[in-house]
């Protein structure tokens, strides 16, 4: 039996006494790109937060790579990109420093960075197209660039499963396309992705499966062609392997 990167069974979560998730089942298989959709209040953010251990679970089970969440120790296999840009704190930090904190799953209690860490960090920064900003302070970058730095932070751990909470929120269309190229290349390399989104946009061709939540329960779990989406007239049928982006790591700036 192959281990699923993520397996959620009968998940029930309430916040402040209010039920938010009611018996949700969700699987992400190796190499799959799953989109989690739903309107505000549907519980999609809560679902991913519960899956990574940020929100306590009332009932049900979360397993990462076959291990129960509370016993899961291989945190470097998981990459998490939070919803709002939390790149900026009270004192300055460079892109490299922020991305470096993505390597801590391997040295959780103590330990300074190694050469391997530096190599992985620079590769991740390169992957999101921020190489020329490695030593820049994150507070001096745009919202979209900060979001890319947070994605690089998740990539730096060389994660097999990426869980992303609305990475395209507040990002304009051109840059959503850039982001979708990046995500496409990741999936092509075999990374599993669970992505929370409000709408599909340029990500639609990449998605293997869409799970729609409404009022804390799953109302759809299948290919996204079945989803009516008034904003997109064309549905690009995709055979599963997007073109390797060639210009991506070179010049990320689209005006």
């Amino acid at each position, binding site marked *: 039996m192959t281990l699923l990167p993520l397996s959620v069974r009968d998940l029930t979560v309430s916040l402040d006494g209010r039920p938010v998730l009611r018996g949700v089942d969700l699987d992400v298989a190796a190499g799959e790109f799953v989109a989690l959709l739903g309107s505000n209040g549907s519980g999609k953010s809560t679902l991913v937060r519960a899956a990574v251990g940020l929100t306590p679970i009332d009932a049900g089970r979360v397993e990462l790579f076959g291990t129960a969440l509370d016993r899961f120790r291989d945190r470097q296999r998981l990459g998490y990109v939070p919803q709002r840009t939390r*790149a900026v704190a*009270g*004192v*300055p930090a460079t892109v490299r*420093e922020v991305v470096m*904190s993505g390597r*801590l799953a391997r040295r959780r209690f103590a330990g300074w960075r190694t050469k391997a860490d530096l190599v992985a960090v620079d590769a991740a920064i390169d992957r999101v197209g921020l190489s020329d900003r490695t030593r820049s302070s994150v507070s001096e970058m745009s919202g979209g660039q900060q979001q890319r730095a947070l994605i690089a932070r998740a990539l730096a751990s060389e994660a097999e499963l990426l869980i992303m909470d609305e990475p395209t929120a507040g990002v304009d269309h*051109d840059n959503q396309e850039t982001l979708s190229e990046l995500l496409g290349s990741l999936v092509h390399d075999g990374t599993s992705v669970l992505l929370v989104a409000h709408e599909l946009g340029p990500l639609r061709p990449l998605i293997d499966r869409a799970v729609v939540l409404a009022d804390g329960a799953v109302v759809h779990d299948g290919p996204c062609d079945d989803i009516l989406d008034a904003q997109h007239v064309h549905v690009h049928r995709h055979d599963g392997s997007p073109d390797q982006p060639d210009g991506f790591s070179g010049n990320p700036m689209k005006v």
Partner: protein
Amino acid sequence: MIELLGYDFMRRALIAAVFTGLAAPAIGTFLVQRRLALLGDGLGHVALTGVALGLLTGVAPILTAVVVAGLGAVLIELLRMYGRTSADVALAMLFYGGIAGGVLLTNLADESANSLNSYLFGAITTVSDGDLVLVGALGVLVVVLSIGLSPQLFAVCQDEEHAKVSGVPVRLYSILIAVLAAVTITVAMRTVGLLLVSALMVVPVAASQQVTRSFRATHLAAMVVGLFAAVGGLVTSYEIETQPGPTIVLIALVIFGVASLVGAAARRRRPRRHPVDSA
């Protein structure tokens, strides 16, 4: 200036100033990073109750202060993590409780609030050899842990949730930061006094971030500024006959002012290497 090195009390005071000037910003950088700059003040007020407890029981006040401030640090972290009180209200409670408790206990010890003066404003020239050993040991502990655990503490203060998902023990390290702050406060108590100790934790950090871009540079520069302000302030106070505490803090503020001007000028002159882009 060399003459002051001839005095025992001055030599001890200088050593205490060195440890304080390094330790306070070493841990203060993390407080500012997670926007808890006032925590130092809150714990300073709680330490006052600890001092008063020492006066009441006859135990060395610096020890009771460390214990009470340490407990206060744990309490406020637990409130912040699990309680429904907002951080600023919880901090305000500490402020009020600390001062009220401190004065009350002092009264119970048959002394007026004036006995707390040397703790409120510092009395670095009365540092004994025993005090110095304690100040040195605790100061070294704070600096070694702040630098040694820097990658993990950075992650916890930069983005606590992401650190938690990475498996970093965020609860433990949050409490550790608060406890190290409490320890630093009692170390700095003799130098700058409880009312101003937070200034030495925060102002050097504020000064260095006017000109730095990385966390590491900010952290190290803050310690240099703290050291310079502490030693410079002590020497200046000797020369112009003022109390060391406020002199040290004012020098730190002057450095902040200069750094702000330098930083602003440097930013205006920096050539625009990166065109404005949307993402």
